[in-house]
């Protein structure tokens, strides 16, 4: 192109509208990442936490599905017909040992599912009892944490958002409950509730769960919500000064709406972290109570009651104590490490 005097020297080709393929080349589309996705990504980078997550997942799935197809049940006493014992060799079997009846069956060509952990003093398959105990312990831990979460979240957010006198009264109550010696109160309340509930529960659908577990839930609901409430109140106190709350208030939103729609979702990371760390502590408390004989009702097993029962016959069958002990420790340890991982991932500001 010749240079022309008085011209702007513009190449008109530069102004042709871009074709679609060119447009696609220019725009780098990346899926937008949310806070949640970011955090999960950070969590997956943490090898310890991921391993613990898979351990927990494995234990949980096993606890849910194994009892469905396992040929023995947790209360079935093998070698016992109603009323009389048919084969005493079922008691205290070592792992992978068979009783006389079963040996006869194997000899005749039938397949018998082995007793992986042996049997206990009443001829019950110990493996399924441990699996069932794990199921109970996990369920107690999970539901107790949910109860704590709901109560703590409600009271904490109301106290934090309302402020003033409401906050003052609630927080004094929280202070007192917080400084109560929890284990003593748990033992006391559950021992009393157990007696009170037994009569009230007869014939209802709840009777199957057992008075002890229900009283455990009640005790958790009464005593353990306070730290959750404190945490959430603290979060909400700082969040309610944010502009979006003001905007929502200006638009005429009521307190309930603001708490549910704006404040609680922003406390998400605190909530998820402390709930995750609540589960092992609940499992721990349950096993402690079961060990003292205040946990689940017999014949239903929990890991604590299995350990406690095994303590009596420990010299003849030490594995009976070792196995539930290991399972409890494994669950508590992996849940704690996973919870720590969650905290690191979901709360990047907290540099511990």
């Amino acid at each position, binding site marked *: 192109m010749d240079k022309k005097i008085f011209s702007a020297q513009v190449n008109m080709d530069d102004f042709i509208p871009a074709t679609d393929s060119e447009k696609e080349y220019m725009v780098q589309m990346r899926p937008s990442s949310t806070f949640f996705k970011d955090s999960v990504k950070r969590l997956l980078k943490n090898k310890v936490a991921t391993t613990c997550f898979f351990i927990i997942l494995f234990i949980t799935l096993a606890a849910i599905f194994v009892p469905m197809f396992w040929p023995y049940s947790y209360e079935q006493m093998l070698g016992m017909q109603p009323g009389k014992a048919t084969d005493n060799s079922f008691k205290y079997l070592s792992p992978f040992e068979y009783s006389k009846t079963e040996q006869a069956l194997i000899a005749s060509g039938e397949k018998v599912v082995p007793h992986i952990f042996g049997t206990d003093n009443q001829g019950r398959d110990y493996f399924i009892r441990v699996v069932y105990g794990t199921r109970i312990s996990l369920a107690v831990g999970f539901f107790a944490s949910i109860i704590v979460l709901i109560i703590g979240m409600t009271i904490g957010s109301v106290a934090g958002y309302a402020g003033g006198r409401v906050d003052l009264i609630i927080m004094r109550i929280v*202070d*007192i409950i917080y*400084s*109560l*010696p929890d*284990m*003593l*109160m748990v*033992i*006391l*309340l559950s*021992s*009393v509730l157990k*007696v*009170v509930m037994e*009569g009230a529960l007869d014939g209802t659908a709840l009777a199957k769960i057992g008075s002890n577990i229900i009283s455990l839930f009640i005790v958790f609901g009464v005593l353990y919500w306070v730290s959750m409430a404190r945490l959430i109140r603290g979060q909400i106190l700082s969040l309610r000064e944010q502009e979006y709350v003001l905007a929502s208030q200006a638009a005429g939103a009521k307190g309930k709406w603001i708490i549910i729609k704006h404040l609680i979702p922003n406390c998400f990371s605190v909530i998820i972290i402390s709930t995750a760390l609540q589960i092992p502590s609940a499992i*721990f408390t349950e*096993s*402690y109570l079961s*060990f*003292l*004989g*205040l946990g689940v009702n017999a014949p239903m097993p929990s890991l*604590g009651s299995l*350990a*406690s029962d095994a*303590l009596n016959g*420990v*010299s003849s069958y*030490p594995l009976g*104590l*070792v196995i539930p*002990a290991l399972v*409890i*420790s494994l669950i*508590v*340890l992996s849940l*704690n490490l996973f919870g720590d991982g969650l905290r690191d991932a979901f709360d990047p500001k907290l540099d511990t």
Partner: protein
Amino acid sequence: MNTKTLMYIVKRVLLAIVTIWVVITVTFFVMHAVPGGPFTGEKAVTKQVMAAMEAKYGLDKPLGTQYLTYLKDICLHFDFGPSLKQRGRNVNGIILDGMKTSAKLGILAAFIALIFGVVLGSFAALRRNKLVDRIIMVMTTAFVSMPSFIMGSFLLIIFSINLKMFPANGAARNGLFLPVVTLSLYPMAYITRLTRSSMLEVLGQDYIRTAKAKGVSGTKIIFGHALKNSLIPVITYFGPMLAGIVTGSLVVEQIFAVPGIGRAFVNSITGRDYPLVMGTTIVLAALIVIMNLIGDIMYKVVDPRITLE
């Protein structure tokens, strides 16, 4: 000590007093809410005998009056009344008897936890990322995540049933050894981790570098500068540790049959000995609350920079 700290201490003491009162009240009403009196389990007793028994223990009066009498007895005379199941003994005597054993158990456990914890923690920090440090950290992680009753059961199996080194009965000679070890393992592991992390932090401070540059010897740096400053978190853990030992002793005394106050508490619950339940609960709760109170105050006094809600 400034007025703010003083105010804080006054507030904490008031809270502790209210807490103990709440414990007394809750325990009293909870125990009286149990259906069936304490004598229902006994062999068939006639109505007259029952009434006489109830009159003797003041159970026939209205609940409010009973409560006030009970509160007055505790506050003025420190009297928890007679035991219902152990005839001829009063709760005070049982608690005092149990307390002697339990105090020995708890104090020994606290000392062992403190000494071993600080030594192991400093050692791990000074040998950071070496094999010793790794071993100590793995061990302490295991101890921290293992409930005390499991720890106790294992020690019982290994040392008294299999090896027969120590008696399984806590009342026997050398019988307190295993319970003390069981009780001290958790706080020891916790103190080890605490000391290690705070020691590592202190070792990175400027004043340590200054001391090194001045030519101060290694031992002097560790004992004179590093250890002293890294003990602050350990001191603050002291209250919760003692409280934890009290709670832990409930189950440990049960496992090893130690005739202490924790065992009296658990047995009184299963035996429905109401005055004993109330007495032991209140004494143990008061102990825990006071330990935590001392811990919190120390927290504030040792390091005034710390602000508590």
